[in-house]
């Protein structure tokens, strides 16, 4: 008959003995394994924004709204342009009236609630425009939080929404640190920029890229070393937005400064 002391001793030895070989096993993620063996995907869509070239004309926003049937006057948009004005006192003034659909027609800064702030030109230290769109993150939080899997990532990296499946809970909107998602006013489901997936997969450029008169926006395939966008990303000093969230965004910026939110 085994006594209690022996039983405890033997249990400890057994647990210890089992733990060692078990630790030798590693859990494999099939996706990671496949990627390590042969990276079969030939395409990974990325975006490049050159903030030096952007003049805030808003042609991209206009083109996007028309191309993707986002109601023109609705106060939501798949892409927008932000204006940054940094004054001598170190203050950062930011606005994006109507997502800059009509460009920036006055020097006054929209501070919400129908009010505007006048800034004297001689007070300005620097000012610039930053176009924004979905970052098609490599680790998209919106896909992670969708309770029904209505939003998903394609093999070529773009995050899409299934309008027939979305229940409209808004969790993905809450989960996105970049604020790119919204509810479509007509379909009443989650909506976002998808790099004009219907166009890029057919060899065209996105609507905003085509509409930009200054070449500030470019779309490319990072898996293709010959792609001019890839070349710039690989050789020049590019930056990304909100790296701290670990989302691995795939929209790269030239000329990003610390003031950009």
């Amino acid at each position, binding site marked *: 008959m085994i006594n209690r002391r022996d039983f405890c001793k033997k249990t400890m030895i057994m647990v210890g003995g089992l733990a060692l070989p078990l630790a030798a096993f590693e859990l494999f993620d099939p996706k990671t394994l496949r990627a390590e063996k042969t990276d079969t995907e030939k395409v990974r869509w990325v975006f490049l924004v050159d903030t030096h070239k952007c003049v805030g004309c808003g042609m991209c926003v206009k083109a996007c709204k028309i191309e993707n049937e986002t109601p023109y006057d609705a106060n939501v948009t798949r892409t927008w342009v932000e204006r940054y004005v940094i004054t001598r006192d170190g203050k950062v003034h930011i606005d994006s009236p109507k997502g800059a659909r009509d460009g920036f027609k006055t020097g006054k800064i929209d501070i*919400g609630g129908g009010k505007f702030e006048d800034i004297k030109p001689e007070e300005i230290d620097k000012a610039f425009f930053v176009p*924004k769109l979905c970052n098609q993150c490599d680790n998209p*939080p919106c896909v992670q939080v969708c309770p029904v899997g209505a939003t998903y990532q394609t093999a070529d990296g773009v995050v899409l929404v299934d309008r027939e499946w*979305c229940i*409209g809970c808004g969790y993905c909107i809450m*989960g996105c640190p970049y604020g790119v998602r*919204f509810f479509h006013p007509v379909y009443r489901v989650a909506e976002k920029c998808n790099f004009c997936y219907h166009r890029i997969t057919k060899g065209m450029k996105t609507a905003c890229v085509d509409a930009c008169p200054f070449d500030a926006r470019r779309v490319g395939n990072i898996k293709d070393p010959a792609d001019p966008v890839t070349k710039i990303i690989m050789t020049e000093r590019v930056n990304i937005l909100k790296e701290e969230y670990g989302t691995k965004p795939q929209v790269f910026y030239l000329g990003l400064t610390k003031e950009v939110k």
Partner: protein
Amino acid sequence: MVHGEAWTVKELFVYPNEYIYWTIQIVMYPFMTGLVAGAFVLSSLYHVFDVKKLKDIARFSLVFSFALLPVAMMPLLMHLLQPQRGIEVMLTPHFTSAIAAFGIVFTTYAMIVASELWFVYRKHFVETALELRGIGERTFAQHMRHLLFSALTLGAYDISEHALERDEKAVKVLAGSGIPVACFLHGYAGFIFGSVKANALWMTPLMPVIFICSAVVSGIALCILTYIVTMEIRKFLAARKQRLYPKLPSAAELKSAEVQVVTMTAKYLVMFLILAITLELLDLIFRGYTAVKSWDILRSVIYGKDFTNIFVIQYGFGNLVPFILFLLPGLTIRRAVAGTLMVLLGVFMMRWNVVIGGQAFSSSFAGFMHYHLPIWPHDMETYKEGLFGALTVIVTPYVLFWLFNKVMPVFKETH
């Protein structure tokens, strides 16, 4: 109009697509599930830990918890933009999402509460069914009641001493296994918020624990309050009936029993209240001390824009005042009513300050959003996401409780 535009006012720089998307119904959701979990934990204190003094309120809170259960789902459905697809959360869950666990946790919990209730009320079901069966010429209403109670017995008519003992054992096991599930149900509601890394106010691993503690607080408070209200009605009825049937308990007897139950339950309330406040303050202090990137905007929301909501209503009226009320010696019924009402207000405001407060600032950290609760509904959207939608959610459990009480009389001696 874009969803959210009707009740959102923006200030300074807010991203164009940002609105207050999660509104009053999402405040109601954790509030209601909190009540469910709290009511259940209270009833389990008697069933599992054998706190005899809670016997009276235990059965009551179990039935009440069951009445609250369907209502925990209501605010979620009312908030969905495609409510007809809501069932997909259960049918095609996407398990990396915290919400996807809802179907599993919720149904598990519902089954535990339902089966526990069945064991508690089995004797009553059998007796009623047999009694109705004994009547030769049944009226239509009696016939329907007979059908209902016969169905509720599930064919188990054995109510011998031995069988009832085994029932009690089953209740104990179910109540015991229910506690972790109830905590999970609510803790996971906290996880839904706590895991949103994009929201600086929500993201903290303490969120689920804070939610559980305040859930238990609110659940106990509501049980005390509803218990007092029903006892008052009973006292009123007893005073009238006693003239006819002197054998029934007198109003004075009922009152002494009532005070005893309330005093005992209030002790548990204060215990959980201390725990909840400690954790909330810990979270606040930690945020201020570590002062990461988001602290600037959080500070202006917590100590500026939402100061009244957080420090005056939630901590002041909702926590501190009831704390004093309950701790002063010689608890009276009137003071208990005032205390529980304030505790409920406090927990509601805590949910409000988390859900609405978490959206009071833009994720650009450069602007604010103000929420204006739609009072009078102009259309379906302002009804669902407005005051009247919230009131609908509040009233429903009482209607259900009244219905359930017809079948499972809360105050009748069973075992």
